[in-house]
């Protein structure tokens, strides 16, 4: 079984693991929105939306700015961080998979030589 090293930054993974939070995150793909905008479209209260946004911000996935009296949220354009994290997770996964296969194949080779 393939597993990810526990040292992979977990915050982005866990932040997006919650389906509602992912839905909120995806709703920001089109552009900046306020808590009220998001709460209008989903069966979630404003405090709950705020809470989800806070988790997404802590994970570095969403940014916040104030426009007049409105608090707007958008996806963090430093998506490069996400790409880097993705590649980090990908290579860890690949390396673990490689290690397992190499060791399995090698012990098989040795068994044949016996």
């Amino acid at each position, binding site marked *: 079984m393939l597993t990810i090293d526990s040292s992979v930054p977990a915050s982005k993974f866990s932040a997006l*693991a919650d389906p509602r939070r992912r839905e909120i995150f995806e709703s920001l793909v089109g552009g900046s929105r306020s808590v009220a905008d998001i709460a209008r479209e989903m069966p979630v209260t404003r405090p709950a939306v705020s809470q989800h946004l806070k988790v997404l911000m802590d994970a570095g996935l969403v940014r916040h700015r104030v426009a007049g009296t409105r608090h707007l949220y958008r996806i963090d354009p430093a*998506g490069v*961080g996400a790409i880097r994290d993705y590649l980090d*997770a990908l290579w860890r996964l690949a390396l673990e998979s*490689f290690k397992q296969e*190499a060791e399995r194949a090698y012990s098989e080779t040795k068994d044949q030589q016996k």
Partner: protein
Amino acid sequence: MTPSKILTTHSSPVVAESVVNVPQAFAFETFTKQGTWWPMATHHIGEQPAVDVVVEPKSGGRWYEKAADGTECLWGDVLIYDPFARLVLGWHLNAKWEFDPEFVTEVEVTFTAVGPETTRVKIEHRDMEKYGADEEAVNRALRSEQGWPGMLKMYTEQASRK
């Protein structure tokens, strides 16, 4: 965030390292037979699932995935093929997760013998700043079908495994 900030924050290379209990030459050869161990079911760029991942065994060779019907999708090329110590691959997948001949980041894999049957394998994927050089491309990636949703899927798959 200014581009220079992105650069300093995100330009450090991605490094993965592991000690594998096989001889150095065996490690190198298995690594280049990527179709035997690459997580192809979840990680391919073509429309169809990949059945093999080929690293042509020469500097200047191609690096690609292959589908069951023979369709090939390029990932990049082999920059340095130096058995059994080093392999440098050119990763030509851009921020939109597409093959792009103009875009390249380097993946260096080193195999160091630490014992007759023990090898330290280190993967270093560098040039991360190239993904940050073009904020527009990153923004497009966030919106593209192949880019962000795919990453999201992987994040969540991993999260659910925990």
